[in-house]
């Protein structure tokens, strides 16, 4: 075996992995874009749901419920960077087409900043959803950022989990929001058990390994396993 080959993954193995993840022969359509009769009915229902929930938000429904760090009157600190606002506005229309409502950019609240400079904002959607926008990821360029959206947090879904790695020379960052009362998040990473504290409703971990066996720790001393290790 040549030294050169010993340092590289085999062609066969890479080809096999690509085959596994190539997916179906046709592109999937986002649910709102389906053209079947049933699809149109579903889309119409989704649009209605957005309107109803959007009204609910306007009437006082708060997707930030249980996130104390996000529940404060807007200040200049909450203003999103201009480049992010522009890209989020663009993405918002795509979200709406997907039936997830649009981003309510004026609802954005800055919640915390990591020592690395990575900043976190919560943003509500007109469908009552909760998004976490991030900027200044380690290794990202000045206009890099991320957005993860889902339902608002609840006792059965007390944290969000996202993981990003900008490039090979920068660390993977795993992070998410945590509901009030969650004091720490534990997981297995790289074969070791690790626990990170929650600060300002955010937990974050910098490390190359993917996270396994995720458990949240509550302020009453109880724990809740979200993802079993395998």
């Amino acid at each position, binding site marked *: 075996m040549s030294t050169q080959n010993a340092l590289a993954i085999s062609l066969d193995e*890479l080809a096999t992995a*690509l085959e*596994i*993840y190539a997916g179906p022969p046709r592109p*999937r359509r986002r649910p709102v874009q389906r053209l079947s009769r049933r699809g149109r009915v579903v889309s119409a229902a989704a649009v209605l749901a957005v309107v109803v929930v959007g009204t609910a938000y306007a009437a006082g429904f708060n997707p930030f419920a249980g996130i104390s760090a996000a529940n404060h009157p807007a200040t200049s600190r909450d203003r999103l960077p201009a480049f992010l606002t522009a890209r989020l506005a663009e993405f918002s229309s795509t979200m709406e087409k997907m039936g997830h409502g649009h981003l309510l950019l004026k609802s954005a609240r800055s919640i915390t900043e990591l020592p690395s400079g990575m900043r976190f904002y919560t943003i509500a959607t007109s469908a009552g959803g909760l998004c976490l926008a991030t900027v200044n990821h380690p290794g990202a360029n000045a206009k890099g950022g991320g957005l993860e959206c*889902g339902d608002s947090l609840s006792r059965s879904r007390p944290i969000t989990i*996202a993981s990003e790695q900008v490039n090979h020379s920068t660390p993977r960052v795993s992070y998410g929001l945590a509901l009030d009362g969650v004091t720490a998040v534990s997981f297995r990473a790289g074969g070791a058990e690790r626990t990170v504290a929650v600060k300002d409703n955010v937990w974050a971990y910098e490390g190359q390994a*993917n996270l396994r066996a995720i458990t949240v720790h509550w302020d009453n001393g109880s724990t809740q396993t979200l993802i079993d290790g395998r």
Partner: protein
Amino acid sequence: MIVAVTPDIVSLARRASAGETAAADELLRELEPLVVRTVRLVVGSGSWTAEDAAQDALLDIDRGLRSLRDPRAVKAWALRVATQRALKVSRRERLLWLRRAPSLDPELLAESGGPETGRSAAIKAAFDILPPRLRATAVLRLYVGLSEDETAEVLGCSLGTVKSNLHDARKRLAGELRERGFEPTTLPKEAT
């Protein structure tokens, strides 16, 4: 080899480029699996961005059919159009990655490598953070099965660049696999 051109495809391409709608539809159906999977793998399977890009690539091909100069080269041309779309989307995603967490889209979970912990999921995760150009080279060479010359033609680069891109991709993947606790396997007599 997937890129080998059958007479039927050539005939369809000829009729489609002459403006025959039925032939264009049939040609797109023939090309669709190749185009969709190529774009999906280059952009990163398991994301709506990849699915959208695959649809856009098919639209690009549909729009470009009338300007197809050599119907005999229709598959290479389609792959060029698809790869350009995939690279464009990948670069934009790299600049600002706005996407939903894969775990929120169960439909895409199987291809995202998300909850899996095995070796192939580790390769997938490592592959998705390679620079887009390296991903495209690997997909065209190893998944589509193009020769190095054909890959160079589709990507519009030199043969040497294809070789170095592929080697670079494999080296980076091996490093990533080690960091994730897997030893890369190699074959003693494989071509590089």
